[in-house]
């Protein structure tokens, strides 16, 4: 087959004498032509190796990017976990403070109630005392009446003593003294009445003052109850918010796991570069093999007496077929020889993963 090609090539050279490249070839020696063709095979081979290197460099770069992506993702999760840990500590602290505040507020409430009850008792007792003072006022009035009657009695006694003349002189002295006593006791009763009245007014003031304090304590209790309610609501809101954040963080972590799995899958798929590398390396080796065969055949065609006849070129097909490592290479080989179209379905027949 190749020998036919050489013969035809020589015929073509005769008919295409106007082509400048052909003209250039004509001035070359046969050895120079052979070296040029060898150089072409070398060029193709080097291009293939260069392509392998380029894919390797690019895949390395992609892997580096994926590594960074993974590190960033990991850092994000660590930051979120730290945030969650801080939020949990904060929640615990707020819970403790809330419970302490609640305890104090309840204690304050109890104390207020106790104080209020005591003050009410005082208020009642003060009311009773005020009533008793009022009762005393009535007794004072009685004393006044008695004093007035005594005074009247003393006056009558004085009149009777005057009628008695000399005999009634001693009695008159007694009647005068009794009158003085009645004036004095009337004055004392009047003073006592005033004092008791003042005392009663003061006690009413005190009772009103206690009432005012009871009102204040009541307001304080309402304020404390309100505070407890607000404290409970705030803690509940914070607890709910904390749970919501934890839920969102868990969702982010789940998504991050999906991302990490995707990165892992992409990293696995990048092994295709090794598949391509091995295919291209095999192609480069075959190009070199064809180049060697070409050179040998050329030399033999030039002077059959110098070299043994080259092997049948169809044997190269067998040689190539034996060197394949991938199903796809074998399929492409068979399809090419059979003249059938390429199909990738057959290559996926073998299991990708098999445990023995």
């Amino acid at each position, binding site marked *: 087959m190749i020998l036919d090609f050489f013969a035809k090539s020589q015929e073509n050279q005769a008919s295409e004498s106007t082509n400048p490249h052909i003209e250039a070839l004509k001035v070359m020696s046969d050895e120079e032509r052979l070296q040029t063709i060898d150089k072409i095979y070398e060029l193709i081979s080097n291009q293939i190796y260069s392509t392998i290197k380029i894919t390797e460099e690019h895949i390395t770069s992609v*892997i580096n990017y994926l*590594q960074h992506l993974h590190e960033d993702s990991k850092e994000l999760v660590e930051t979120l976990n730290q945030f969650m840990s801080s939020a949990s500590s904060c929640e615990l602290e707020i819970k403790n403070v809330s419970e302490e505040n609640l305890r104090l507020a309840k204690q304050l409430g109890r104390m207020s109630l106790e104080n209020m009850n005591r003050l009410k008792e005082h208020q009642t007792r003060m009311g009773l005392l005020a009533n008793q003072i009022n009762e005393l006022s009535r007794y004072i009035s009685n004393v006044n009446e008695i004093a007035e009657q005594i005074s009247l009695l003393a006056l009558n006694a004085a009149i009777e003593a005057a009628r008695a003349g000399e005999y009634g002189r001693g009695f008159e002295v007694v009647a005068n003294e009794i009158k003085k006593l009645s004036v004095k006791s009337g004055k004392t009763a009047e003073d006592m009445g005033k004092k008791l009245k003042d005392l009663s007014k003061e006690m009413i003031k005190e009772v009103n003052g206690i009432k005012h304090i009871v009102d204040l304590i009541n307001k304080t209790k309402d304020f404390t109850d309100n505070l407890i309610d607000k404290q409970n609501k705030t803690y509940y809101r914070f607890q709910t918010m904390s749970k919501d954040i934890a839920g969102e963080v868990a969702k982010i972590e789940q998504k991050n796991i999906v991302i990490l799995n995707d990165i892992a899958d992409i990293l696995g798929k*990048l092994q295709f570069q090794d598949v391509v590398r091995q295919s291209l390396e095999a192609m480069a080796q075959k190009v070199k093999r064809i180049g060697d065969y070409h050179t040998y055949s050329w030399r033999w065609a030039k002077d059959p007496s110098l070299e043994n006849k080259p092997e049948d070129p169809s044997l190269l097909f067998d040689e190539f077929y034996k060197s394949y490592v991938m199903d796809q290479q074998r399929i492409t080989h068979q399809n090419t020889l059979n003249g059938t179209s390429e199909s990738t379905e057959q290559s996926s027949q073998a299991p990708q993963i098999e445990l023995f």
Partner: protein
Amino acid sequence: MKKTIFIIDDSATVIMSLKTTLEMNGYTVESASNGKMALDKIASGFKPDLIITDLNMPIMNGLEFIKNVRQILKFTPILILTTESEQSKKDEAKKLGATGWLVKPVAGTDLINVLKKVLPGS
């Protein structure tokens, strides 16, 4: 404790991609670029929990490596990760003591699932 995986492959990109995937999943990774280098490391006392080896490598190929390493590490799981798909090679690998056969490219999550199956406690 982290499990140690030993990767043997002549492709720098395969080692990089596997190392990243495995480290991401909590494994410690050591590597060698051919069977001889790997065998020397194991002979000097290195005991990985699992080995992932390529088949077609320079100096010493994967099958030769398995044959030699089985004299030192009798029970360590050995997975072959290769482009090779010839049944005779697969049979030979099985006979020499390989644990499983994976054809490149293998998705990272599939690889991790395999590791969890063959490496108890990982």
